[in-house]
């Protein structure tokens, strides 16, 4: 069965206006803040990680028909079932977020950087080509930036690798780079010209020398 993300939207033709929204307008139904908080509060239980959550969301078959917090809700329900929360032997939470500690907990960072096990393969200004093939699992290289040549603009250190972390296969930390592309490389000769450069943050396995 091949993996398909319904969330990879960059460069696609999508109908509809972009509707500006005032700063204070955070929720649009009373259940929305509860979903936001449920998802955040489930973090410390360790039942899933951020990459598993993203994978659960982007593979919802009706992703494109759902609102933001509906996606969160549906993915949370899906993961809870997968993890056996409703079974006779539900997994024990690693930790439960208590009300008295909640305010401090969200000020704490989940650091995704790790110590390098090997030197970085690429350096600033290196030309790199992104891999073209789509792997059969969650990944963070958008379709529009596959098989394209760009330039390394920043080196961010070594970070948790979503491709393995999302599958429960461990963090497998990898060097992370900002790779910048000229608009023509991504979209061909567009008229009118946008006069733009687009970058993605790409893990080392997404790149080859160009």
């Amino acid at each position, binding site marked *: 069965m091949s993996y398909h993300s319904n*969330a*990879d*939207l*960059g*460069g696609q*033709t999508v*109908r509809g*206006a*972009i*509707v*500006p929204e005032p700063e204070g307008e*955070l929720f*649009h*139904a009373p*259940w929305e803040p*509860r*979903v936001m*908080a*449920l998802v*955040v*509060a489930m*973090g410390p*239980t360790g*039942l899933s990680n*951020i990459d598993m*959550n*993203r994978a659960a*969301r982007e593979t919802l078959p009706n992703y*494109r028909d759902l*609102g*933001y*917090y509906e*996606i969160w809700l549906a993915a949370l329900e899906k*993961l*809870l079932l997968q993890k056996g*929360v*409703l079974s006779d032997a539900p997994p024990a939470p690693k930790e*439960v977020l208590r009300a008295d*500690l*909640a305010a401090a907990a*969200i000020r*704490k960072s*989940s650091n*995704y*950087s790790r110590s390098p096990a090997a030197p970085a393969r690429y350096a600033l200004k290196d030309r790199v080509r992104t891999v073209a093939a789509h792997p059969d699992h969650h990944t963070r290289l958008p379709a529009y930036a596959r098989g394209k040549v760009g330039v390394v603009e920043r080196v*961010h250190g070594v970070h948790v690798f*979503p491709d393995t972390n999302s599958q429960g296969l461990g963090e497998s930390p990898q060097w992370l780079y*900002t790779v910048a592309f000229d608009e023509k490389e*991504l*979209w061909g000769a*567009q008229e009118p*010209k*946008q*006069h*733009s450069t*687009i*970058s993605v*943050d*790409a*893990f080392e396995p997404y790149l080859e020398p160009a």
Partner: protein
Amino acid sequence: MSEHEHDSHSGHSHGDHSHADRPPRPASALETRVRALEVLLTEKGYIDPAALDVLIDAYQTKIGPRNGARVVARAWCDTEFRRRLLTDATAAIASMGFTGRQGEHMVAVENTPQVHNLVVCTLCSCYPWAVLGLPPTWYKSAPYRARAVKDPRGVLREFGVELPDTTHIRIWDSTAEVRYLVLPQRPSGTGHLNESELAKLVTRDSMIGTGLVGSATGLAGGATGLAGGAP
């Protein structure tokens, strides 16, 4: 489930402009479903429902774009802070007390007359919560995520921002755990304002790159690009 969450998409369920083609869902059904889930997770010992109230209050009253606005205003007033922000944003922002989820690995990118920065997450809706709070609906919506990378000038026009061709647009697609904060240009004619007065001018959209500081004042500057909009 863990961490800062950002997947999303075209908005909410109550039939707004972006899904006029879809029938609104009855809120009561969702309300019941969420309530049932909350009760279940409480009974199974995974959550403390009182903690949910604390989280909601924090994102409604404490963690929002006013934090980012203070960072920007300080960078405008304090050259040394600005330098630190542009070289190690995570540390500079943490020094103001704005730490935590979705702010773990920060990068600040500076607008100049030559370069305008725009931030998007085409794969979900990654957003710097620690400085900007929860993302607006449009940021999570399919139209913004689809177009920002390919038609940034069209997107900016939808926000009433028109940039000259001589201004290069630099788009940052947040595809990993690095979060981007745009340092907008300080409007001219604000030399007499102090840091907290300046912070009031800084809009959320200007820190994402879909707005310019000063452009919301209704002056002609709103449509004339980076040089405009000075109050």
